[in-house]
């Protein structure tokens, strides 16, 4: 049942106007939701792909470091890894996806540095492999960071937009349609009672 409203023509016109705005808003939001879902699908696929790759490479590299530590001893390992073999340089910015500001990280091209920062004589081969793995996974890690964050933000926004779209579609618009129906029925009813009264008056006048 519609809310208690004044059954006047003015109220009817006002509600009709509000309904038109709500329908336009609903259409816009629905379009936004569709486009965001499309973008989200692209990002989430990439996210899953990268996450699997990165998890696998990192776990492998860490297991290799553990092996190297077992072979060389903790202090020798720490000493070997004291100096970084590369500098993780990247530039960060933001970009706008459907008016959500998401991170955008780009790996900088860097000049080749010595691939292994320690003496090869006393170090384990596991460590070499782990260090090189780590170096190669860095660009992917940075891409993962920006993609994963984008997915977090997009999923939040998508949920919010979905709620708004549903609220408009199933609550506000339905309610306003009911109100319009209620007012127009009431007005028609008044019209009819007016007509009957006139007819009655006319009959009475004829009789006189």
């Amino acid at each position, binding site marked *: 049942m519609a809310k208690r409203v004044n059954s006047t023509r003015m109220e009817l016109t006002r509600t009709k106007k509000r309904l038109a705005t709500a329908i336009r808003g609903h259409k816009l939001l629905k379009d936004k939701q569709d486009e965001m879902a499309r973008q989200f699908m692209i990002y989430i696929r990439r996210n899953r792909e990268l*996450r699997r790759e990165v*998890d696998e490479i990192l776990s492998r590299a860490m297991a290799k470091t553990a092996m190297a530590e077992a072979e060389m001893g903790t202090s020798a390992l720490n000493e070997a890894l004291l100096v970084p073999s*590369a500098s993780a340089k990247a530039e960060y910015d933001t970009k706008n996806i459907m008016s959500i500001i998401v991170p955008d990280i780009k790996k900088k091209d860097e000049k080749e540095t010595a691939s292994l920062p320690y003496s090869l004589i006393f170090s384990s081969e596991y460590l070499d492999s782990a260090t090189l793995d780590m170096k190669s996974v*860095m660009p992917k890690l940075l891409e993962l960071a920006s993609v994963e964050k984008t997915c977090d933000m997009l*999923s939040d926004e998508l949920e919010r937009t979905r709620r708004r779209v549903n609220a408009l579609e199933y609550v506000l618009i339905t309610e306003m349609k009911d109100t319009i129906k209620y007012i127009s029925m009431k007005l028609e009813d008044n019209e009819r009672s007016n007509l009957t009264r006139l007819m009655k008056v006319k009959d009475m006048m004829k009789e006189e």
Partner: protein
Amino acid sequence: MSETKIAAVGDRASVILFHTAGVTTRDVISLEEAESAVRELVVAGYNVIFITEAFIKDMTDLTEKYRREAYPALIPIPDRSGSMGLAEKKVIDNMEKAIGTNIFDK
């Protein structure tokens, strides 16, 4: 475009490799230490912070706090004992939240 500051937080064995890649590392042993390390790094202007799954799973306060902002990005990484599947689960959760269902399995 500005320079990204990258850091890694976790147990020593897991983050030592990040050090070789030129990432700032903080080795921590307890959750409290990890949380204060992350807070310090954020204040120091680090935009990307990799945290081992063992610690990030209990840092809901921090992750929720920064969830709506583009930076800093707090990203889970597997630790020495391998991945706990937490990050993969997060991908699925995001999917379900946004689309309403997990369509990767279909």
